[in-house]
């Protein structure tokens, strides 16, 4: 550690170069963090947002195919089912004329709370949801994006149903990343009937909570059996499997993003290595003098490597912090993106922070190793010969 002052003094030697290198590394690490949020976002949804007791029940042919609304009653009778709720895609557009910017569903208000206890919706909010027919429960991501508060009134124009509906926000899902908007399905049913139609006789998706994770498989088999040979044969899958499949088609895109991230990371290594080799080259004589005085090769190697690594770690850490700050700001504007779904949220999670820091360390070591080793190994006389 007594050599630390030497390392720092050397970094201050060419301030402009150190600043430029640090700047480049920092910016590249910011970029890498932002890019890494995409695959990380996918993992987060599939791993974290999915409960291991929830099952999705949908028509085997596709989620745009429906099931009869009465089917949910049969599902609730199945042994092991703690709660089940029927949901239907409302496809409502808010302001942006004709574009759905967050997923919104019509749900059975009596049962939704029991199926999603992990969403920790306040009991009084759930009570209001049951009490007020035009009530809505909204995830925090959307509340933040449109600056809604509990008590606000919003209008959604459905893109799939021939209705526009007014809602009163009565509760929120406390998760910062939750993009959902839930409304009362009886409200939709009434509105459809008011138009002279038959009402909401169908449901798009039934969500089930199993009382015990070990019962999940048998529950899924039973439900599928119930619907076999009926008009709407079902396919059950766990919540994790559902999301995994839903975003599975983004896998190709994510692969490209990871490749691009790797390219940028390689950039950083090259930039740092270039600086390291320039610095070492210019100081060849000094290093020779140090070796002549008696500093052995290991010390020389270590101090040179530390120089590169210290710069890289400092710059990389700053980059990670900056990435976190940027995404905090971005969250005001982004969120659910049409092309990427929830990946548009750019959430810099703990794994991303860790990966960013690890990259900084790795870059410093990789970039510095070759120049440091070469300089340490070079015989003193070789350098002196060249000069004298």
């Amino acid at each position, binding site marked *: 550690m007594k050599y630390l002052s030497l390392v720092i003094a050397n970094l201050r030697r060419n301030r402009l170069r150190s600043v430029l290198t640090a*700047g480049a590394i920092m910016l590249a690490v910011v970029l890498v963090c932002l890019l890494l949020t995409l695959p990380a976002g996918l993992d987060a949804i599939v791993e974290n947002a999915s409960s291991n007791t929830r099952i999705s029940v949908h028509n085997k042919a*596709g989620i*745009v195919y429906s099931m009869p609304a009465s089917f949910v009653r049969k599902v609730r009778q199945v042994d092991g089912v703690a709660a089940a709720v029927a949901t239907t895609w409302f496809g409502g557009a808010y302001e942006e004329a004709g574009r759905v910017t967050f997923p919104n569903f019509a749900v059975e208000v009596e049962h939704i709370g029991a199926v999603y206890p992990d969403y920790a919706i306040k009991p009084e909010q759930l009570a209001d949801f049951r009490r007020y027919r035009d009530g809505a429960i909204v995830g925090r991501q959307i509340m933040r994006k449109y600056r809604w508060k509990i008590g606000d009134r919003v209008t959604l124009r459905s893109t799939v149903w*021939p209705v526009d509906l007014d809602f009163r926000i009565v509760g929120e899902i406390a998760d910062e990343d939750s993009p959902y908007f839930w409304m009362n399905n009886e409200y939709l049913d009434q509105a459809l009937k008011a138009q002279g139609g038959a009402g909401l006789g169908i449901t798009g998706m039934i969500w089930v909570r199993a009382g015990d994770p070990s019962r999940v498989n048998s529950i899924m088999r039973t439900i599928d059996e119930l619907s076999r040979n009926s008009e709407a044969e079902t396919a059950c899958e766990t919540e994790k499997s559902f999301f995994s499949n839903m975003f599975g088609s983004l896998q190709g895109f994510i692969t490209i993003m990871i490749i691009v991230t790797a390219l940028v990371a390689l950039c950083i290594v090259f930039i740092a290595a270039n600086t390291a080799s320039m610095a070492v080259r210019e100081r060849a004589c000094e290093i020779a003098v140090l070796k002549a005085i008696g500093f052995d090769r290991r010390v020389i190697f270590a101090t040179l490597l530390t120089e590169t690594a210290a710069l890289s770690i400092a710059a990389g850490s700053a980059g990670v912090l900056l990435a976190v700050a940027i995404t905090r700001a971005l969250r005001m504007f982004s969120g659910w993106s049409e092309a990427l779904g929830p990946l548009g949220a750019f959430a810099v999670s703990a794994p991303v922070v860790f990966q960013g820091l690890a990259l900084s360390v790795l870059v410093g070591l990789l970039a510095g190793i070759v120049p440091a080793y070469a300089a340490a190994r070079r015989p003193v006389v070789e350098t002196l010969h060249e000069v004298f």
Partner: protein
Amino acid sequence: MALPLSYTWRNLQARAGRSIMTASVIALVVVACSLLLGLISALQRTFVLSGNPMNLVVMRKGSDNDGASQLSVQAYQAIRFFDGIARDAADRPLISPELVVQPFFRTRDGGRENVLVRGVEPVALAVHDQVRITQGRMLRPSAHEAVVGRAVLGRYAGAELGNEIAFGQGKWKVVGILEAGGASFESEVWVDVRELANDAKRPFPYSGVRLRVATPTDLTRLKRRIDDDPRYALEAQPETEYYAKQAKSAGSLYVLVAAIAVLAGIGAGFGASNTMYAAVQARTAEIGTLRALGFSRRAILSAFEAEAVALSTVGFIIGAGAAVGLSRLLDWLMGSIAFGAATFTTNVVRLNVSLSDLLGALLLALLIGICGGLGPAWRAARLRPIEALRKA
């Protein structure tokens, strides 16, 4: 008197190792940007190419895409006889009633995607005149047959000519392959509209209607007539406008390219600056000599800027080559790439780095070189001959 380009070139060669390293940094940024641009522009192209300016898309009022819309038989029958719709050689109106459904398809590797299945009548080929059946033949009504788009081919289990694909409630025989010059129709599967309505148990047989107008003035006239019809709540828009809106959502991905271009570009610029500053330092005596000989400040400035630009050009050339090669390799390894998880439809594209994508990357590379070289070139030009010679 300006310094010749050979001076620039020889200097780069003299410090070949460092030049290559710096050029490689720029090359990497070029590859990264080109790949992404290739991907996103491929996606955008599928939409841009999909609209026929003389076609109208008719949907239920308030729907944002034809998968969400419904249209009744009565509405269709009414519109059919409107004035202004083009007619074919046999005097039949060029109006195509269609039903759009997005069922699950199983992919080759066991995944699951929502594919846009379009129920059509034979007239659809005439209305969507970019679409051509290039292998096999068009499907026959009531025969449970399907025609699949070129991008769908091979991606899903059974999606081959002569095979059967499974979706909805049954299996459908693939009798033809359609191509549309890269338009989004190539990601679709076409079947008979009545059979699809049966299979999907839709109360409304159609989701919308596409029609060809006879003259451009008919476009606005018909649009207004359909929009204002009090009997049915319908909306008409030019097909080009319809697909332009879809393209906008893909356009938001350009944000990623911008992020890379800005952040990585600045980083690479800093790296280039570093190299150039070191070059200026090492050649202080040389610069002093040149100035003493009579070369102006501007000549020195230009010479160093030229070196920086030459570096970034070399970087671009390396990067462009690598980008094309890498994209071919990835395309071969990954096959088609899917988009559109949130809109219940999958658009399938192939990664391709085109000339226009490379043009964007070239601009970026040049910018990096010019900006990165500015500081060092300025410093070199400001060196006074005496100081420069004394330092040596």
